[in-house]
């Protein structure tokens, strides 16, 4: 009991002292830290126009606006809570360039920063209208069911029917920058997180400075009651898709051997039997022309093979189906310009025997690469796949895909592209095409283009080298060997015991 009491006392002191720190944040010291660490993005005058700003989407926050996106005060309360600002500084904002600072700044220093950045908009005093979390509806099957209906009605116009951000609306923030509705199936890409309580706060207050509105505003036709907002938050949280989680250290696409034919279509349910591997996509910021503002952030791959062929399924969420010439596609694009969506896989022409591989950026003079490049097609031309050989960023040669037996087919559904690429295990041009071999680690890299996000040519997202592995079927000996060895050892034991007993 005593221990419990003293813990309470300590907690109380901690709470009081941290609010005290908040109240007392030292603006002058905050300014010093800000000028060393934050000006590069948020700029000296707090307008968010630092040297890095032109390369960032989302752009750094303009503190002179006084708007904070991720707050827990009401929609009609301009002031955020100091704790809201503090939290974004301490933890950072995932999938944006805003890092968390708690690993290098002290708690006091971060409160100083809070006090300082509030001065840019002259924010003073305590916010009065807080979000009321007390009527939380626990997540349950029923609540999620109710939430789903509300979601389709209120949220899907932006976030898409299944929450992958594919509502197909052109959205901008108050500073004219393109904003993409969050893909709710990837909780790791949330700026805060997908706890229903957080989502409840987002839809109650809205996301200031963006078109994501408040659903608690009585003036809005879309207003939802407290209970309804909890239901929709529970549903939104349930959209998290664990099969898209990127596992650290998981670098191999394991192709599964099958005896019969390989699935032809991207939506064949048989694909479920192949183990998926997820990879981060990063913008091509390495060679000219570089690209800094991607819209796609991950890709998933799985593969099957048999004696004759290999088939690889690529799946990635893309909020827009980009078909040049299509009116609807042009509407969503920022400048009306639409290029084709695309996806490519890169392999070395010769599977390396040792560690040395071709340069990950389209090979090098000594070690060429194969590229299988699928494009989504235009209004007039159907989708197609190209076969390219390259020996460097700008040294490409187009080859005959049909002759090599390379085929590809993609379908777009509710914010996800699924593309199957297929090729015979071996080809006739052995010096120009990769010849797949079972049981070897084969370097593999990916690239993806979102044509509605002005991605074309060298402007795209990509990965560096990962691996493809054609998993041999476990031979009989894998099971027979251990049994034989075990029996031999047992025999040995018994014999030794016998001998020993005879002697003794």
């Amino acid at each position, binding site marked *: 009991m005593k221990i419990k009491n003293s813990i309470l006392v300590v907690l109380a002191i901690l709470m009081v002292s941290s609010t005290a720190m908040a109240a007392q944040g030292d603006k002058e010291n905050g300014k010093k830290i800000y000028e060393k*660490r934050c000006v*590069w*993005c948020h700029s000296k005058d707090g307008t968010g126009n*630092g*040297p*890095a700003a032109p*390369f960032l989407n989302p752009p750094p926050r303009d503190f002179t606006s006084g708007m904070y996106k991720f707050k827990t005060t009401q929609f009609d309360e301009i002031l955020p809570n100091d704790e809201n600002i503090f939290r974004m500084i301490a933890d950072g904002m995932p*999938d*944006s*360039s805003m*890092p968390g*600072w708690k*690993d*290098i700044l002290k708690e006091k220093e971060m409160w100083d920063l809070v006090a300082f950045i509030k001065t840019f908009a002259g924010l003073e005093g305590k916010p009065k209208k807080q979000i009321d979390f007390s009527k939380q509806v626990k997540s349950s099957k029923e609540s999620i069911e109710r939430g789903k209906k509300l979601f389709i009605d209120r949220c899907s116009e932006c976030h898409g029917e299944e929450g992958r951000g594919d509502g197909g609306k052109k959205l901008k923030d108050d500073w004219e920058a393109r904003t993409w509705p969050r893909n709710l199936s990837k909780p790791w890409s949330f700026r805060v997180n997908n706890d229903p309580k957080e989502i409840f706060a987002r839809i109650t207050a809205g996301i200031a400075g963006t078109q994501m509105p408040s659903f608690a505003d009585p003036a809005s036709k879309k207003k939802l009651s407290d209970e309804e907002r909890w239901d929709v938050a529970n549903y939104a949280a349930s959209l998290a898709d664990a099969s898209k989680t990127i596992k650290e250290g998981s*670098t*191999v696409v*394991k192709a599964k051997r099958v005896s019969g034919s390989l699935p032809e279509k991207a939506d064949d349910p048989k694909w479920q039997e192949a183990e998926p591997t997820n*990879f*981060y*996509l*990063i*913008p091509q*910021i*390495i*060679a*000219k022309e570089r690209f*800094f503002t991607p819209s796609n952030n991950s890709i998933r791959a799985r593969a099957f093979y048999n004696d004759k062929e290999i088939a690889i399924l690529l799946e990635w969420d893309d909020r827009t189906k980009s078909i040049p010439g299509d009116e609807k596609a042009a509407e969503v694009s920022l400048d009306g310009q639409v290029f084709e969506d695309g996806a490519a896989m890169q392999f070395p022409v010769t599977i390396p025997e040792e*560690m*040395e*591989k*071709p*340069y*990950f*950026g389209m090979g*090098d003079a000594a*070690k060429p690469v194969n590229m299988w490049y699928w494009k989504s097609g235009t209004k007039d031309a159907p989708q197609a796949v190209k076969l390219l050989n390259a020996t460097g960023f700008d040294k490409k040669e187009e080859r005959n895909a049909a002759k090599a037996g390379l085929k590809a087919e993609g379908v777009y559904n509710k914010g996800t592209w699924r593309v199957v690429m297929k090729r015979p295990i071996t080809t006739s041009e052995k010096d120009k095409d990769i010849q797949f071999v079972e*049981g070897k*680690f084969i370097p593999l890299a990916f690239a993806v283009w979102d044509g509605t996000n002005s991605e074309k040519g060298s402007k795209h997202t990509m*990965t*560096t*080298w990962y*691996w493809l*592995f054609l*998993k*041999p079927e476990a031979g009989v*000996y*894998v099971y027979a*060997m*251990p*049994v034989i*060895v*075990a*029996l031999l*050892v*047992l025999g040995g*034991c018994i014999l030794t*015991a016998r001998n*020993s*007993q005879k002697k*003794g």
Partner: protein
Amino acid sequence: MKISRLLLAVIVIGIFYSFFKIFFGIILKQPIPGSLFTMYMFFIIIGVLLVFSFTEQGAKELMSPIKDLLENPEKMMMRNVVFGIVTIFAGFITYQQVKPSFEAPLELRTIHPAPPSNISAYNKSYNLLTLENPFMKYKKEDPEKFKQLIYEGGEVYFKNCFYCHGDKLDGKGHYAHGFNPLPANFMDVGTIAQLQESYLFWRIATGGPGLPKEAAPWLSSMPVWQNFLSEEEIWKVILFLYDYTGYVPRSWEKH
């Protein structure tokens, strides 16, 4: 209580085993690779057994519990259990050995390879032994100007480098997780704090493709910055790196 010699031998081997695991794996965070570890343990077991069975008497004592287990009619039950365990263990080890491994191959590379004495960049040749940062002199001569140069270096950094090397220069930029090998962490005592400015100039100007073979140039995603930045910009960003981290570049005099 007298501990049997066999048990003692087992304990000694156990101590060696946990020492390796804890010291290299947990304290140094550099676990010994599996095959090497197996070899070490093999020699240690042989060594310990040799020591423990050095004298005739010792050898007898060492073997006595085993002999007892094998011969004593009262320990029949115990004997069967031990044989069972040994058998299953042998089968398991064999399975571990023959089952196909789907672990990606380990790729060992030198992180800071020895620099060449001469490099070419910007259509010129540089001698790395004598190359110096032309702006360093302002540190004493014109501190105001020096500060300005550092700021300009910061601008270069925050337009080009921070996506990977991080806003905090800790190698954890927004896109760092997409690269293998990971971008260098400048806050770490093992990177720029150990290097000379001329070394940094070489690594920045010629990028990943400029690495020697032992450093796996085909993997490194470091861009070739002479294609994007001027020489001055590279020297300025080097000033910024040292200023922000608080480290001092190595120089020849200190050697």
